[in-house]
């Protein structure tokens, strides 16, 4: 089992690199990463592109009239983007921050709207309802770029297609029906009707249908602003104001993975994208979603990785990994896992419900190898740790989040001590396993870099080794005058490149045999689903009344740099940040040693009364390792329970209490 996450995005020495060549050569399987997947899973339903391709280039923020920062703290988590938001603000854009806690972002924003943890979905739905109800929708946009005029069969919930009447239709040629409002009859989309109806219930050749928009409109009527106000604790006027502000396009939503960390995260993304599609706030200049801009690069994956013709399977999500290892079975069928290689990942620290490592995972693995350059928790508990060379000690090729450049990474120094570039580590192991043909002796990083760049598509883009070597960074999407807007021409959907307001056939992000029968139909439209645990209606809420979040600290990137001495001088130890009200009711003062606990685990650490915390929220900034706590660890408290569709760790969907020790 290969356990790989996102510790390094290098195309040679990182998680996008040659480990795949090795894994495929030996026929290994791969864990499916379950971090930060829900937002993308939700956006995928509307604009396609999978879980990663949803954000526009951050420079597009400069064209926005309004920027709503929703569940994100870019000042800490994506500071490279913050300066662009700031510049947009200087140019007159209004910046609104919706967050559970007060952050430096909130401080710099024009307006801060606090919200109840996990209720963002309700807010989005109510705003959508208000926008539709008050006719703030952008009808021309909906007609031209969304599936709003598409017709949905009432009998089976499927879109009305050419193939519904003509079984001979080539699936590739299949077309959607819309209602031509001029001719007042159903027509195929490709026939180019003058005008289409976005509302109405019709009967087409005996089939009862209604437009997607009508379906949506009727569906969201239940999410009144009043109800949302009650759940989100945002005043009604504020929600209405937010909805009006949002609809007055172009409005940009800046988000990342805050809301993602609840079990309803993907639904929020779904709802938010639907709302964007209704108001024309997507795929146009100055509007859309920014926060995680990722580029797909047509590198030589096939040639470099697929040594046996196919990719390693990755159908076991991290969320259920402990169960699979414990049972040595998946969905009732034997699935023996005895050895694991962890690379580019501090899984023990970053996967929810840490204690399963001690009860289920480690006792049932015979052999665990970790390749890393920091002695992480995962490495500490491994059988063997192989020291990887640091980024500055290897040559590599990379693209990174939030910029449109492909970069040549050149090593500054030779690897220190016993460390080796990961590709060399894999090569040495592979050669011992008789795989010399895949990992020849005596090649350096440059050999692999050139191998990755060897595609016609890249040559067409004029991205070559020599150019990268000379320019170091090459812009591969957009231009500085015209930054890349996601979906400007079309969306990556199967609905004629339109934004989908209705998910006809919602699929789980990863199918490991989970029961979806109860929810598949529901998931076709964004609906309100309360967070799985961190919700006031949960009976557990009485026992553990605090919602526990692990905010992103600016002194670490997840767990990276946890032991960097210079940063530890600035931020020496883990702190449990508690609101003044919650601290006073528990007689806790700043500097007290407290135990944060729930049924899953505990963390003993120093408390800090922090006014940024809204009452009812407790935060331990993430990334600290076990040895840095007095006892336990922040990740012991979180849950591995995930939404069956998004299959994503819901770290913030977690209840705890705290007491002085």
């Amino acid at each position, binding site marked *: 089992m290969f356990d790989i996450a996102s510790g390094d995005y290098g195309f040679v020495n990182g998680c996008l690199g040659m480990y795949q060549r090795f894994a495929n050569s030996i026929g290994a399987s791969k864990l499916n990463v379950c971090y930060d997947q829900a937002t993308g899973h939700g956006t995928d339903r509307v604009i396609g592109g999978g879980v990663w391709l949803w954000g526009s280039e951050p420079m597009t923020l400069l064209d926005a009239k309004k920027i709503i920062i929703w569940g994100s703290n870019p000042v800490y988590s994506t*500071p490279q983007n913050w300066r662009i938001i700031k510049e947009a603000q200087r140019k007159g854009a209004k910046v609104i921050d919706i967050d559970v806690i007060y952050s430096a972002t909130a401080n710099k924003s024009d307006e801060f709207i606090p919200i109840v943890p996990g209720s963002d979905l309700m807010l989005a739905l109510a705003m959508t309802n208000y926008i539709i109800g008050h006719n703030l929708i952008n009808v021309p946009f909906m007609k031209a770029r969304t599936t709003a005029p598409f017709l949905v069969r009432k009998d089976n919930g499927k879109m009305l297609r050419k193939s519904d009447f003509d079984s001979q239709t080539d699936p590739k040629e299949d077309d959607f029906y819309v209602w031509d409002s001029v001719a007042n009859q159903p027509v195929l989309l490709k026939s180019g009707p003058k005008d289409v109806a976005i509302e109405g219930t019709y009967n087409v050749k005996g089939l009862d249908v209604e437009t997607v928009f009508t379906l949506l409109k009727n569906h969201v009527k239940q999410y009144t602003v009043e109800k949302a106000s009650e759940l989100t604790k945002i005043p009604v006027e504020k929600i209405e104001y937010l909805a009006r502000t949002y609809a007055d396009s172009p409005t940009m939503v800046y988000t990342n993975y805050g809301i993602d960390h609840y079990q309803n995260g993907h639904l929020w993304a779904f709802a938010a994208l639907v709302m964007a599609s209704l108001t024309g706030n997507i795929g146009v200049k100055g509007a859309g979603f920014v926060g995680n801009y990722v580029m797909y690069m047509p590198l030589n994956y096939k040639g470099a990785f697929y040594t046996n013709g196919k990719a390693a399977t990755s159908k076991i999500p991290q969320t259920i990994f402990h169960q699979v290892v414990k049972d040595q079975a998946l969905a009732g069928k034997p699935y023996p896992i005895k050895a694991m290689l962890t690379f580019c990942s501090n899984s023990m620290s970053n996967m929810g419900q840490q204690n399963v490592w001690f009860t289920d995972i480690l006792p049932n693995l015979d052999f665990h190898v970790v390749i890393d350059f920091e002695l992480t928790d995962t490495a500490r508990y491994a059988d063997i740790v192989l020291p990887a060379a640091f980024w500055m000690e290897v040559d590599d090729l990379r693209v990174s989040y939030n910029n449109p450049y492909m970069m040549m990474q050149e090593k500054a120094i030779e690897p220190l001590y016993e460390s080796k570039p990961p590709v060399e580590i894999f090569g040495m192991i592979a050669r011992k396993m008789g795989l010399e043909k895949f990992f020849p002796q005596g090649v350096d990083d440059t050999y692999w870099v050139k191998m990755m760049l060897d595609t016609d598509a890249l040559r067409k883009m004029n991205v070559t080794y020599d150019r990268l070597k000379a320019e170091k960074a090459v812009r591969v999407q957009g231009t500085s005058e015209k930054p890349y807007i996601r979906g400007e021409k079309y969306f990556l959907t199967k609905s004629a490149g339109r934004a989908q307001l209705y998910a006809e056939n919602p699929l789980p992000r990863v199918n490991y045999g989970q029961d979806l029968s109860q929810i598949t139909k529901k998931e076709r439209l964004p609906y309100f689903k309360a967070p799985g645990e961190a919700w006031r209606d949960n009976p557990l809420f009485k026992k553990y009344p605090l919602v526990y979040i692990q905010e992103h600290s600016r002194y670490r990137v997840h767990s990276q740099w946890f032991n960097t001495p210079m940063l530890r001088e600035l931020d020496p130890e883990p702190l449990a940040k508690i609101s003044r009200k919650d601290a006073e009711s528990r007689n806790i003062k700043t500097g007290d040693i407290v135990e944060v606990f729930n049924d899953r685990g505990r963390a003993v650490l120093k408390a800090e009364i922090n*006014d940024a*915390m809204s009452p009812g929220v407790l935060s331990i900034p993430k990334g600290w390792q076990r040895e840095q706590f007095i006892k336990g660890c922040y990740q012991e408290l979180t849950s591995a329970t995930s939404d069956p569709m998004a299959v994503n760790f819901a770290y913030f969907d977690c209840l705890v209490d705290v007491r002085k020790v």
Partner: protein
Amino acid sequence: MRYAMAIDLDRCTGCHACTVACKVENNLPNLIWWNRIITVGGESPDTPKGNFPDLKMEFLPINCQHCENPPCTAVCPVNATYKREDGIVVQDYDKCIGCRLCITACPYSGVRQFNAKKPEYAIEVAMGDDGVAPHKEKVVEKCTFCAHRLAKGLEPACIRTCQNLARFFGDIDDPQSEVSKAIKGRRYVKLLDHKGTKPAVFYLT
């Protein structure tokens, strides 16, 4: 000719890039910071002030203000600190006897730091520029406006690294310099200006 710095507090997010860049460039020993960030909420970093949700979370980076009228140089009993022609207040480690009178005379507390013990470093290799004077035990040290970089025609490390583009540097007497342009038309404060120190750091508000 007088070097000056401007810091745009509206842009500054207290990210510590300047403090760390300073520490690396000048190979500062453990626990020594020439550049620090003050938060409104208290000693703990990144804490706000007020009652939720009516809060403020501002940041103020502080380094040596390189006063035109520096109180520190006046009290130094051994002439270890003095003002250069270009306005930079420098510290001569060879002369400094570590009496710390300058630290108490300086109204911008904390910009002068005292190496009480033999300097210790987190890693065994020296970082930063080799033009930086080696650190010594029992002497006071402080920001030099990266005089070694200025000598090479470069800007100070903190200016170069500021990811929020909040820091500006240059000759305040030259209207075309970055710092003069940054200040032009902006409201600014100079810290404790009423004390007559005439600091060379302008905080744009």
